[in-house]
């Protein structure tokens, strides 16, 4: 999967939780889920469950804690996919 494909999949996953639509349009590797997209911190858990479903992977607690921005999410998804 290319980097752009992964970003576009992540963008679709976070869309329902985003409270700043403009920031979503500009989503890039450097976007932070909470400070940029204004996702409610409680919803980060739901984002991660949706990522698990989309890529058919399981994300453990310590990885979950790191997944607060697009770059970290991409790294973790790639790592899990590589493990398979």
């Amino acid at each position, binding site marked *: 999967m290319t980097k752009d494909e992964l970003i576009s999949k992540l963008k679709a996953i976070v869309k*329902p*939780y985003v409270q700043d639509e403009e920031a979503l349009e500009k989503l890039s590797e450097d976007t932070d889920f909470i400070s940029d997209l204004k996702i409610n911190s*409680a*919803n*980060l*858990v*739901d984002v991660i*469950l949706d990522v*698990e479903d989309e890529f058919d992977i399981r994300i453990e607690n310590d990885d979950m804690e790191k997944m607060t921005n697009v770059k970290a999410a991409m790294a973790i998804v790639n790592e899990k996919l590589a493990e398979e």
Partner: protein
Amino acid sequence: MNKNRVVITGLGVVAPNGVGLDAFSEAIKTGTSGITFHQKLKDLNFSCCIGGIPQISEEKKLEYLSPLQLRGFNSAGILYGCMAGIDAWKDAGFEVDANSDLDTDTGLIFGAGTSGIEKFREAILKVDKGQVKRMGSTVVVQTMASGISAFLGGILGLGNQVTTNSSACTTGTEAILMGYERIKNGQAKRMLVGSCSDDGPYIWGGFDAMRVMTYKHNDSPEAGSRPMSATASGFVPGSGAGAFVLESLESALERNASIYAEVLGGNVNSGGQRNGGTMTAPNAEAVQRCITDALKNAKIAAQDIDAINGHLTATSKDSLEIANWTQALGRSGNDFPYINCLKSMVGHCLPAAGSIECVAAVLQLKEQFVFPNINCEDIHPEILELISEEKIVRELLKTKLEIVAKASFGFGDVNGCVIFKSYSE
């Protein structure tokens, strides 16, 4: 100290026979039943396969809750409560604005029996499969008892007391009296009050197991709920929500609000499961004291009551309730007030019963009518020994109404009685 007078400036209702004030008002005047057959109950081997469930489309839900709020949402009671609460708020002339300033003058007391029981089931199944991590973030807010007040308080930005009360089938009536007290005592200018109920097999199963719901009308659902009838054979379960904006008279007049009625007062008490009272049966003496103390609190005489909106569930206790009213008021036969009961049309909405039924009572005062009881063409002979047949209203009655008394009674031997009066300066 001069206590505030308390008036009702907004109403909202989600009932099995009408969602929204206009539909509900029309339904109660025409004696329209909201009771239907539910195949799901039959498939699960319920004795009683009929019930009252409000009909709400997916589009309608989106008028009240955002797509994000509805994501993973599976709590009927919270949905009904939010709809009724938001409707009442708008009906009182207020806006719903996610960016509004915190409203410290307004509080919220919205009752419930359980919260999000279907969501709770989802969660339990996941936990039992070892999938606790897969439950998502929305289980707690939908299954905590105060889920409804947490949802509504945030949608409206209320900054006074925000809480949930729970007292079985007295819940809705109690919420009104709790909000009334807070305004009367000057602790809030306005209180959004009401109650809501979940529906479906997990909430109704316990009652079915107790054999207190009728099993005789699975083929005739609309005739199933029969308060005061000689052929009453148990209650029919219902669900929904009712809501009220209560407001100090001063605040209502200041903003030129339309006033439905005044809350004159009332009382809540318990029979303590003594003197004939049990977990599930009322202590008659306590019921009568609840009514007489409500009259005292409202500073009216028994003779002032024009109509009663009864609890009357269509079980063997209906005659006892009528006897209690005759004793408490010292009025019987032809001297008894008009009496009706909404449960004949919507079933027993359990924690939501008091609030939905109070909406009906208040509409009667505003529009000067008494709605008809249905399904009691054969009034129970024990009731006819106590009060005149003509006092049991069976056709829509247009008449002058000043004061309506509403009572609710619940498991745990708890009682509530509220007195409403048509508003006049």
